[in-house]
C-alpha cells in the first residue's frame, strides 16, 4: 500500500513537475514579428509614449507565458515622427523589408489612415487603437481596439446626455466650444445635434483653431452665455487652458465635459472638480476586477513613474493599446494561425475579452459597441460614473 502511495505521489510529482515546466516554458523558435509605428517624437509624442509603455509591458507578459503559438513575440516599433507620410513608408518597410507577421496600428487618425492604406495594399490585418473618425476607414481587415462605435458623434454624446438625465439637474442650456481638430470637431458637431434632439437650448457655439493658446475671449463668451452645461471639444491641454482662463474671470461653470483631455493634468487643475470626460477604462473596480487589468495597472503605474510620465495612471490610451494586443493574441491563439485572412475572418465572427470590456467587430467598418463611459473628477481623481454597471464602487455623477 505504501509502495502504491509512493508511486502515486511520485507520478503526481512528475506530472506536476512536467506541468509546471510547460506552464513556465520559455517560447522558442523564430519570433513572431509584430510591426508598428508610434509618434515617439513630434507633436503627438506625449501620448504615444503611453502606448509604447503599454505595448512593452504586454509583450513582456506575453513572452513570459509562452509567447504566441509557443514562439516568442518581437515588437518591431518605429518612430513615425507624427508624420502620416513617414508612417506610410515605415509600414511599407515593416511589410516588405522587415517581413513582419502582424501589424499594429500607429497613433492618431491621420497616421492610422496611412497605415491602413499599406495594410490594404498587402492584404494584412491591422489592429489599431486610436482611430478618432471611424467613418474614414473602409478596409475590411482593419480592427479598432478603441471601441467607440461606428458613429461616436451620436453614441458618445447620447451616453453623456443619458448620464446627465440620470441626475436631477438635466441642463436646459448648453454652450459648445470646440477645437477644429478633426476627430474632436466631429464630436462637437454631434453634440449640437444630440442636444437639439433632447430639447437643450444651445446658447453658444464657438470654435478655435488647433494650436490656439488664447482662451480668455472664449472663457468670457462662455461666462456671458451662462449655460447650464459646457461641452468642451478640447484635445490635450487645451482643456486646462480654458479652465485657467475661466478661473481668471472668476467663472466656475455649473457642469462641464471635456472630450479628449490630458487626464492627469486636468484632474489636478483648479476648477476641474466634477469635470467630466469620456473613458474606456479607469484603474478602479469593476475594471480592475479583471486580474489581467489589475496586474497591468500595477506594472504600468510603476513603469510610468520610472519613465517620468506626467501621469502614471492607466486610462483610455493605455487601455486601448493593451486591448489592441489582446485582440491580436486572441485571434492568433484561437486560430493557431498567422494568416491574415484567417485572423480577419475569426475576428469578424467572435468577440474578444479585453480590459475595457468585450469587443466585437461585426458592425460597419468593423466597429462594434461604443464603450466610451462617462468619468468625473471627484476629490482630485477620475472615477467612472456612467453607465452604472461600470461606475466605481459607490460613485455617481455629481452635479453642483
Amino acid at each position, binding site marked *: 500500500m505504501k509502495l502504491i502511495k509512493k508511486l502515486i505521489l511520485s507520478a503526481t510529482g512528475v506530472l506536476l513537475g512536467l506541468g509546471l515546466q510547460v506552464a513556465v516554458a520559455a517560447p522558442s523558435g523564430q519570433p513572431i514579428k509584430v510591426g508598428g*509605428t508610434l509618434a*515617439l*517624437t513630434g507633436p503627438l509624442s506625449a501620448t504615444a509614449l503611453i502606448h509604447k509603455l503599454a505595448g512593452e509591458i504586454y509583450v513582456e507578459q506575453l513572452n513570459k507565458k509562452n509567447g504566441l503559438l509557443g514562439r516568442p513575440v518581437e515588437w518591431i516599433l518605429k*518612430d513615425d515622427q507624427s508624420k502620416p507620410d513617414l508612417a*506610410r513608408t515605415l509600414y511599407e518597410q515593416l511589410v516588405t523589408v522587415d517581413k513582419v507577421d502582424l501589424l499594429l496600428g500607429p497613433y492618431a487618425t491621420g497616421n492610422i489612415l*496611412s497605415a491602413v492604406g499599406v495594410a490594404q495594399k498587402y492584404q494584412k490585418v491591422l489592429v489599431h487603437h486610436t482611430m478618432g473618425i471611424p467613418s*474614414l476607414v473602409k478596409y475590411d481587415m482593419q480592427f479598432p481596439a478603441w471601441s467607440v462605435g461606428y458613429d461616436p458623434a451620436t453614441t458618445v454624446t447620447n451616453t453623456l446626455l443619458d448620464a446627465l438625465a440620470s441626475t436631477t439637474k438635466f441642463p436646459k442650456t448648453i454652450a459648445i466650444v470646440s477645437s477644429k481638430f478633426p476627430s474632436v470637431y466631429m464630436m462637437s458637431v454631434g453634440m449640437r445635434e444630440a442636444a437639439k434632439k433632447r430639447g437643450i437650448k444651445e446658447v453658444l457655439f464657438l470654435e478655435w483653431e488647433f494650436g490656439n493658446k488664447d482662451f480668455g475671449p472664449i472663457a468670457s463668451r462662455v461666462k456671458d452665455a451662462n449655460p447650464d452645461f459646457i461641452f468642451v471639444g478640447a484635445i490635450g491641454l487645451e482643456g486646462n487652458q480654458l479652465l485657467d482662463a475661466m478661473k481668471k474671470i472668476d467663472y466656475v461653470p455649473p457642469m462641464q465635459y471635456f472630450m479628449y483631455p490630458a487626464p492627469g493634468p486636468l484632474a489636478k487643475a483648479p476648477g476641474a472638480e466634477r469635470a467630466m470626460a469620456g473613458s474606456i477604462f479607469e484603474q478602479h473596480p469593476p475594471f480592475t476586477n479583471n486580474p489581467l487589468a489589475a496586474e497591468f495597472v500595477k506594472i504600468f503605474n510603476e513603469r510610468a513613474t520610472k519613465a517620468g510620465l506626467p501621469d502614471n495612471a492607466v486610462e483610455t490610451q493605455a487601455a486601448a493599446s493593451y486591448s489592441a494586443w489582446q485582440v491580436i493574441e486572441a485571434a492568433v491563439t484561437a486560430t493557431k494561425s498567422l494568416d491574415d485572412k484567417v485572423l480577419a475572418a475569426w475576428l469578424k465572427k467572435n468577440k474578444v475579452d479585453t480590459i475595457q470590456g468585450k469587443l466585437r467587430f461585426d458592425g460597419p467598418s468593423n466597429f462594434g459597441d461604443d464603450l466610451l463611459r462617462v468619468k468625473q473628477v471627484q476629490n482630485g481623481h477620475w472615477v467612472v460614473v456612467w453607465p452604472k454597471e461600470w461606475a466605481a464602487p459607490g460613485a455617481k455623477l455629481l452635479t453642483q
Partner: protein
Amino acid sequence: MKLSAPAWIALVGLGLATVPFFGLPAFYESFLYLIFSAIVLATSWNILSGYSGYFSFGHGAFFGAGMYTTATLTSKFEIPFLWTLPAAGIIAALLGVGVGAVVFRLRRLRGELFALLTLAVTFVLATIVLNTPIDGGQGVPLTAVTLPAILSSPSSTLYVLGLAMALLTLWIAYSIYLAKLGTGLFAIHDDEDVAEVMGVPTYRYKLIAFGLSCALAGVAGGIHAMFISYVTVGETFSIIVPLNVVLMSVLGGTRHWLGPAVGATVITALLYGFTAGDYPVAGRAAVGLILIVVILFMPEGLLGRFIPRLEGRRRKTTAATPVAAAPAPDAVQASSETLLRINGLSKAFSGVQALDGADVEVRRGEILGLVGPNGSGKSTLINMISGHFRLDSGSIVFDGVDIAGLPAHRVAQAGIARTYQIPRPFAHLSVLQNVTLPAMFGRAALGRGAAESEARYWLEFTGLAEKADALPGELNLHQRKFLELARALASRPRLLLLDEVLSGLTPAEIDHAIATIRTIRDLGATIVFVEHVMHAVMELSDRIVVLNYGKVIAEGKPEEVMRRPEVVTVYLGKPHA
C-alpha cells in the same frame, strides 16, 4: 566623354525609373518618393529664396494649396487625380504671384519682413481652408479616390510622379541657374537696387521665380495628398514644412542648383535612419547635432563648400578664355548735340530739398564735371538720372526720349550706366561675373558667352584681369573702384555717370584713374563726372556744372566757371575784409 548636367539628370532619372521593374520591396519606392518630394520642395523653394535671397517661410502654404486643390477636386468633384495636378500647380502659382505682385513692389518688405509675411500667408490660408467647406475642420479623406496605375501598380504611380517632378524641378532649377534669369536673381540676392540699375528687371524676375517656385510646390502637394490619403489643416499648414525646406537648402547650399537636392536627400535619409523605436529622441537630437555642426562649419552648405574647390582645380588646368576686342562704350566724336537734357528737376526727402529746379545739359561725347559742396545734390542727380529715385517734378530727356519715371532697369537698357561713390559690387559673384552681368542686362544685351568676353576686355582695360575669379571682398579699394568702372563700361553705355570714382584713392592711384578716364573719353564716351578732386575735374572736364543747395549756380568751361565769384564763395566762403 564628359556629360552635361541635363544629361546626368536624364541618366539618373532613367535609372531610377527602372526601380519598379526590379521587383524590390515596395518600401524602396516609398522611401525614394519621400526623398523626391523633399527634393521638389527644397529645390523649388530655392528658386526664389536661395537664388534671389527672398527667404520665404510660406512654402507650406503653396504646398498646402496644391494638396487641398487635389483633395477637393478628386473627392468633391470626382475629377481624375492626374487632371488635378496641373490645377494644383496653377492655384499655388496664382497664389504666389498674387502675393508677390503686392509684396515685391514694396522695398521695405525685404529680408525678414518678407519671411514673416509669407509665414502669415500660411496662417491666413490655413484659416480660410479650415473655416470653409474646403475642409471645415474634419479633414479631407482620399481613401476612396482611384489612383491610376502608370506602371506595375497604383503605388508605383506615386513613385513615378514623384520622380518625374523631382527631375523636372531639378531641370528647371538648373536652367534658371544658367539662364539670364538666374544671373539676375543672384544679383538681386546681393544688391537688388544695384541689380535694377544695371538693367535687371527685378520685379518681373522675382515674380517669375516666385510663380515657378509655388507652381512646383503646388504640384508636389497634389501628389502628396494622395500619398498620405487624408489631408488635414493641422498637418498640411504646419511650420515644419518650411523649416525643413529651409534647413535642407541651407545644408546643401542655396547658391547651387543642386544644393537643396543634396540637402533634401541627406536630411530625409538621416531622419529616416533614426526611426528605430528604441532611442527616437536621441536619434532626433543626433540629427539636429549633425546639422548644427555642418551648418556651423560649412555656412555656405555642402555644395557651396566643395564645388568651388572642384571648379578651382578645373580652372587651373583650363586655358584662359581669349579676350575679344570689345568696342568702345559708344564711339562718337564730341559735338554740341545734346544727349541728355534735364529741366526743372526737383526732389525732396522728408522736407529737405535735395534738388531744386535743376537744369543740366549733357552734350554727346563730352565729359561734364558735376561739382559742388557736400549735400549740394550731385549724387541725388546721378541717382535720379539712373532711375534709382523718382523725381518730384521736372523732366529728364535722354536722346530725345523722356526717361523720367522709367524703372531703373529700363534706363540702364536705354544706355545709361553708373558707378557708385562707395563701390557696391555683388559680393557673392566673382569679379568676372560682376562685369559680365551688366553686359548681359545693360544696353549691350549680349548673350552669356559674348558678355563674358566683353567683361574680360574691360577687366583687362581696368587692370583687373588677374582678379577675374576673385570675389570682390578680396579687392582693395582702388581695385573695387575700377571694378565699378569696368561694370559700367561693360554695358556699352551711351552715357556714363561716374560718382566720385576717385575718392579715397592715393595720389598715385588718382593719376592712374585719371589716365584711365581720359582713355575712356578718347574712345568717345559721354561722361558725367561727379568729383571733389578738383585737379582731376579741371584736367578731365570739357565743361562743368556747379550745384549748391540743389540749384545750378554756374555752368561752362572749367577755368572760367571756377573763377566766378559765386563759385568761389561756395567753395571758400564770403570774404569778410
